[in-house]
């Protein structure tokens, strides 16, 4: 079975439908699947539920899908870096479900690993715990959270081989490895597709079993907060 697709648009063939659930990797604008987001925008698919830690910025990242009003609901831990998000949310056009960041990560990991629910102490005694099952373990209270899966997961990695084995780079890894496991179909877009056998099997972060489609993309890699230090005078 051939996993390598010529471009992000082709990689979406036969997968998209209105009302679908999509997981999108990335933290802020770092390690986001820019090419697949553009292809989803071009496909015009609507009423999306998007599971992603953040929601991009105005005009970039998931902000592109927001601007085109393709998103019905966001499942995130931190949003609001974009004005259009704020506008749609305040006018009731957009649903929002907040998850603590670690709970979101673990729900995705669990979903991909066939675990329907788990207990965590994160959020006990807060609004997040309302309506959730509470249980004591060794005298401490925990709440139940459920696993998450998606119709497709779009992830961004540094390198892939034609089998879909993935290697991420630096903090661009973030949510991508868990999401790769939790999509019914996972599309990985990468900076470089290398020859079979050229990745060290000991260094692979996501084994190819989790990845159905691979695309080599081009990336803007926009920086949200460019912070630098000055060289001290010699």
């Amino acid at each position, binding site marked *: 079975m051939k996993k390598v697709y010529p471009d992000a648009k082709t990689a979406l063939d036969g997968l998209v439908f209105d009302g679908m659930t999509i997981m999108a990797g990335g933290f802020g604008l770092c390690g986001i699947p820019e090419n697949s987001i553009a292809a989803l925008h071009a496909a015009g698919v609507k009423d999306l539920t998007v599971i992603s830690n953040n929601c991009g910025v105005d005009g970039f990242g998931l902000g592109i899908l927001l601007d085109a009003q393709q998103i019905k609901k966001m499942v995130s831990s931190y949003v*609001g870096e974009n004005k259009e998000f704020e506008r749609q949310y305040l006018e009731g056009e957009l649903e929002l479900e907040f998850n603590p960041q670690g709970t979101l990560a673990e729900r995705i990991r669990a979903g991909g690993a066939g675990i329907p629910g788990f207990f965590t102490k994160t959020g006990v005694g807060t609004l997040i715990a309302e309506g959730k099952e509470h249980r004591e373990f060794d005298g401490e209270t925990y709440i139940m959270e459920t696993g998450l899966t998606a119709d497709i997961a779009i992830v961004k990695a*540094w390198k892939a081989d034609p089998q879909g084995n993935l290697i991420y780079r630096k903090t661009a*890894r973030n949510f991508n490895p868990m999401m790769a496991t939790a999509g019914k179909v996972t599309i990985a877009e990468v900076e470089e597709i290398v020859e079979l056998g050229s990745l060290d099997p000991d260094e692979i972060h996501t084994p190819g079993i989790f990845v159905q489609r691979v695309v080599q993309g081009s990336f803007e890699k926009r920086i949200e907060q460019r912070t630098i230090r000055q060289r001290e005078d010699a």
Partner: protein
Amino acid sequence: MAWTRDEMAARAAKELKDGFYVNLGIGIPTLVANYIDENIDVTLQSENGMLGMGPFPYDEDVDPDLINAGKQTITELRRTSYFSSSDSFGMIRGGHIDLSILGAMEISENGDIANWMIPGKLVKGMGGAMDLVAGVKRVVVIMDHANKRGEPKLLKECSLPLTGQKCVHRIITTLGVFDVVEDGLLLIELAPGSSLEEIAEKTEAKYAVADDVIRH
């Protein structure tokens, strides 16, 4: 007179011990990194997936794939490791991080913390704050002693939605340092120029003054 933001950060840096793995929150807590004693070995964790966070890069070394949890560009060190968000929060939730230093809007006398949501205002989300306060071994808060309207932020009970229950161990404010103890707060240190009278006036939470309270 009271502690400035930088002076609070310098005071908070004394909470770091040799060998600690530490997570610093966004804002004033980030400044703590500037005051770490050079004679101790501390590793900073960034919850987006990095242990061993270095300083901001020189202009030519900026790498879009290398950011901290505040989305600022940073650098790696020789000790650095990278990992996924689930591994990162495994470290946090699993109690492997020794210390977290965070900002807060309100703290109650039993150590509840509110720092993510003001009802009626646009809510941006809790990010990793709920996981940090629930999982890290020791939670230290840095904050102004009173809010912008001059009202106490150390309260009997938090009025804002909580980030976590009974999870704060120590609070460093512009006026002094408090520990959360069995039956309320304990004032253990006064900032230079602050007085017991001023603290009494600006604190709603029940607190006692330690016999050996440090005065500067």
